[in-house]
């Protein structure tokens, strides 16, 4: 294998190892904790979600009354 090709491969492998190392050392949290936060986020914002609780003034929905009259 030519030297440059080999050193390129070493650099690539090193980067891979370093990325894995960073990933390994990250601060991980319990699923029960993160899911609770995710569920709470939904709960807090659900009432203002127009696709779950339709709003009166949705510009894409045709008005029921005829505006010209």
């Amino acid at each position, binding site marked *: 294998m030519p030297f440059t090709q080999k050193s390129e491969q070493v650099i690539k492998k090193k980067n891979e190892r370093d990325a894995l190392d960073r*990933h390994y050392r990250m601060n991980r949290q*319990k699923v029960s904790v*993160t899911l609770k936060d995710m569920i709470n986020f939904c709960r807090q914002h659900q009432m203002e979600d127009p696709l779950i609780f339709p709003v009166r003034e949705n510009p894409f929905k045709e008005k029921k009354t005829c505006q010209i009259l």
Partner: protein
Amino acid sequence: MATEVLKVEPQDSIEALQREAEELKKRLEEEKAKLKDVEMCKAASKIDPITNFSMKQRRHLKGHQGKVLCMDWSTDKKHIVSSSQDGKMLVWDAFSTNKEHAVTMPTTWVMACAYGPSGTKVACGGLDNKCTIYPVSLDDTDISSRKKAVATHTSYLSCCTFTCSDHQILTGSGDSTCALWDVESGQLIQSFHGHAGDVMSIDLSPSETGNLFVSGGCDRTAMVWDMRYGECVQVFEGHESDINNVRFYPSGDAFATGSDDATCRLFDLRADREANCYKMESIIFGCNSVDFSISGRLLFGGYNDHTVNVWDVLKGNRVTKLYAHENRVSCLGISPDGTALCTGSWDNTLKIWA
């Protein structure tokens, strides 16, 4: 001197590095397994199900002469940019369904398009391997004359998105890299290497402190990157085929993926693992595009069987199925205020649902 350069430290040999990587992978899996103390459907069992969900087609945007490949909403919640296999990019007034601008690109298959946060710029690209930026204003009838080529990849441009300002744009490409560019100078700010296949989709973290973005591609992995350093900080595996689309959950703590393996998945950044998988035995076609409703409760997926499946993110069940188009649903997006869904299809049209 030459011998010194050639000397490779023993711990830096390819084999040693490989061994180290394998060991890290193993330990990583062990760490992750320790923290899985509950299933999502169980955690959400006490939540009320979604009832009376209804969504109808409100607009039909016709004008493309080929498959619609990509779309994006303007922050004004009214305009939409779309790009197509016919080599055109169109800017629509989604309320009136009027086409306000049409740009002809040098090549067919314009796979990526995006609106700038200010609503005065659009970007697009595809088989030309470039990302070109156009100013958009109603007074300007010929926006092509003021175009600006910003990014160049060594393969097709698959996706692009402006960062929080019009000054920087992030691109993903078939050359398996992502890159951040300065719009004004066209210079490369940072490139992101790590995917082992075509990058298909990118999305920026919505959290204010976030310098993170996620990318997904044909190597079946999704990667989370720190934009400042060009470093990959997390890798998520699990899909059994290409990842076509990635989209952040509105809180920024998770992201969804749509894949050719006919599933959508939710990956939790903080727990560093897959949180849910949205699938049914009857769904056998690939998912091309995903997006969340603004509360994050609903996940919309556009599929190759011409439908849109709407999933309850927390409970994991399908809420409804929209018979959306006459061909593949290639792209979709929720309007910035969450009032409507836009879908684009290989049937050459886009539709607005609310």
